[in-house]
């Protein structure tokens, strides 16, 4: 099953991020290929996305069920294709980010040069996992939070293994884009008046 995991940090309290993520209308358009969504209850929603399967862009409808609203740390969900044989799930994870050594790791990695960057690239390639921490908002300290996003999608049916291979390269960019856009929007909203 293709899986992508991505985490990013921002100089914002966890509760601020939670309040934003809790309301899916806020960030739904940030999802790559977003067309529409319909909230049917606090835990049920239907999403229409355009996604690439190889060369072809398909419009896919998903039914999403929130398994856990774990305020303020976690949202777990499962998803199932309405018009496509796909299923999967994922989660948002929120936590205060005060681990100085971890926060410092990214800049240190950058200083290591080509070898470290290659290791990181390999990690991304094979684990489908990455992290944004060297940006302007990185660094440990009060009010710093980490948002992690994991997405898993398993194409079903006889063609599943082929569709799986076609989708795999796209999963991480989807996760990165969503988490980064959420954080960027929150930083913009919460920027001190200039």
């Amino acid at each position, binding site marked *: 099953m293709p899986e992508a995991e991505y985490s990013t940090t921002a100089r914002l309290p966890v509760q601020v991020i939670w309040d934003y993520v809790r309301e899916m209308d806020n960030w739904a358009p940030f999802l790559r290929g977003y067309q529409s969504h319909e909230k049917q209850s606090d835990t049920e929603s239907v999403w229409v996305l*355009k996604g690439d399967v*190889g060369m*072809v862009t398909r*419009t896919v409808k998903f039914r999403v069920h929130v398994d856990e609203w774990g305020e303020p740390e976690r949202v777990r969900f499962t998803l199932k294709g309405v018009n496509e044989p796909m299923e999967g799930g994922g989660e948002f994870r929120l936590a205060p980010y005060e681990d100085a050594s971890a926060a410092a790791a990214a800049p240190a990695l950058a200083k290591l040069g080509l070898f470290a960057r290659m290791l990181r690239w390999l990690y991304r390639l094979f684990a489908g996992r990455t992290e944004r921490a060297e940006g302007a908002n990185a660094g440990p300290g009060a009010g710093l939070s980490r948002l992690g996003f994991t997405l898993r999608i398993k194409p079903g049916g006889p063609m599943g293994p082929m569709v799986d291979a076609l989708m795999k390269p796209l999963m991480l960019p989807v996760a990165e884009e969503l988490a980064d856009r959420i954080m960027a929007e929150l930083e913009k909203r919460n920027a001190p008046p200039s």
Partner: protein
Amino acid sequence: MAGAPARWDLETDVVSIGSGLGGLSAAIAAHDLGATCVVLEKAGKLGGLSGFGGGEVFVPANHKMKELGLADTLDEGRRYYEFIAAGYASAKHQKKLLDTMHEAIRYVGEKAGLRWKACQGLPDYYYPNAPGSKASGRYLSVELFDAKTLGEWQAKTWLTPIMPPGALHEEMYAWGGLAKVTTWDYELLGKRIAEDLRSFGPGMMAAFVKAAVIDRKIPAYLETPVRALVADANGAVIGVRAERSGKDFYVRARKGVILAVGGYDHNKSMARMFEEMPDWNAVFPAYLDGDHMVMGPELGAAIASVPPTNLALFYGYSIPGEEVEGRAFWRSSWEGGVPHAIWVNKAGERFCDESFYKEYQPKIRHWDGKKQEQPNTDIYLIFDGNYRERYPLGSFMPGQELPEGMAVVANTPRELAQRLEIDPDRFEGTLARFNANAEKGEDPDFGRGSMPWAIRLVGDMDYKNPLLGPLNKPPYHAVRLRPVSVGINSHGLAWNLDAQVMHVRGRPIEGLYTVGNSAALLDLGGGYQSGTSNSRAITWGYVAGRHAAARKS
């Protein structure tokens, strides 16, 4: 001079306009004779139409057949080509094509690293009825190509949505063909996709791109459409005016310009004028818009044609929500030739052998002189519950729910006809007759099941006649079909035996060549056979490149 600049932005010997088979073959051949070359490509990817297609290269008596012990001769090949031409080819063009084809194919194999293999088990279109036809081996394709060797070009070369990625021809047939998609080895395909091992057109063009752009270091400019040819006072072509990032980009061509931009599929006014089609859609991306038919005639180039009634025109459909490069993706439809499916026109009647496109193509344009209409330009694919249980529709697997708006569905044939506004009595009569014969494995009206090529491609070997099964199980479905083109047109530029474009005054235009689907199908004539587009593109690209390289600057 016609639009010559005060200063050229780039100077080279040979400019290939277009990066499909013709353009790259010409560049490779010219380069190997010492010419400097540049490739200008309108799209954001290299490979052209050739990189989007099936990648079959039709070569009678090819060297790979001999290695496999498959009997064939040049004379049999010639007779088969004459059969296809039906008297409409230029004999001298066809002779030179056949005389040069093997040399060109072997050249790109030996000098450019194309790893050819003969497709076993795929018959010629007209086997066994046509003189010189063969049951197997005349289609060459490439071995799996490792696209990781393309480096930065890996993501800048075409993949195709019309063929299963990573599959080889023989595998596809061994797995059951296009109809039996539930029995394919998708685990294997998944692994090949993950490793970016390419087959069909993408594999072939990846190999050509590597040979031209990586191994020979021929510069290739993406997103650089050529807007006009530049000629000197004598009318000889000396360069081009292209466009890069919204600005003019003048490239001098000391020895020649190769016009290899494909056809005019996306130019609907040309389609109406040249193909007698009130409306059509195109399978391939939007770059085939007839540039050659504008830039050539601007300098006096002559247009030539072959009969439009027997070329590569299909019926197709667009699945709601499916797009390629931001536009609706039109698929050519082979589903009508599968058991439990037929096509009907708005009169509620079958009108062709749905499994063999060469038979139905002339009927697409059929003109009803009493009604002043073309009754077959807007038709329906009809299939039943048996079909839905067994066969796919486009990318939708058997049983998978079809997207909203894709099909009209009804519980009875009569109800379906009423919903389609077709005479229900006539429709029921059509179905009853087809079903009665299909039960016996026969199609006395149109002979469906008589062409081995069609059986190989879409047949279900579980059936007495692999292309016939009755429509007798609800629900009944109808999908609207429209004509779709696949890049091979009836009109193109006139050219001579050196692939030089001909002037309307009957002389060659110095410095200007045309190959591939931009060149009128003078060498093929009144018919078509899959893979002949590719073999003629390689052959005439080879001829054009060598001729241009030998010209004095």
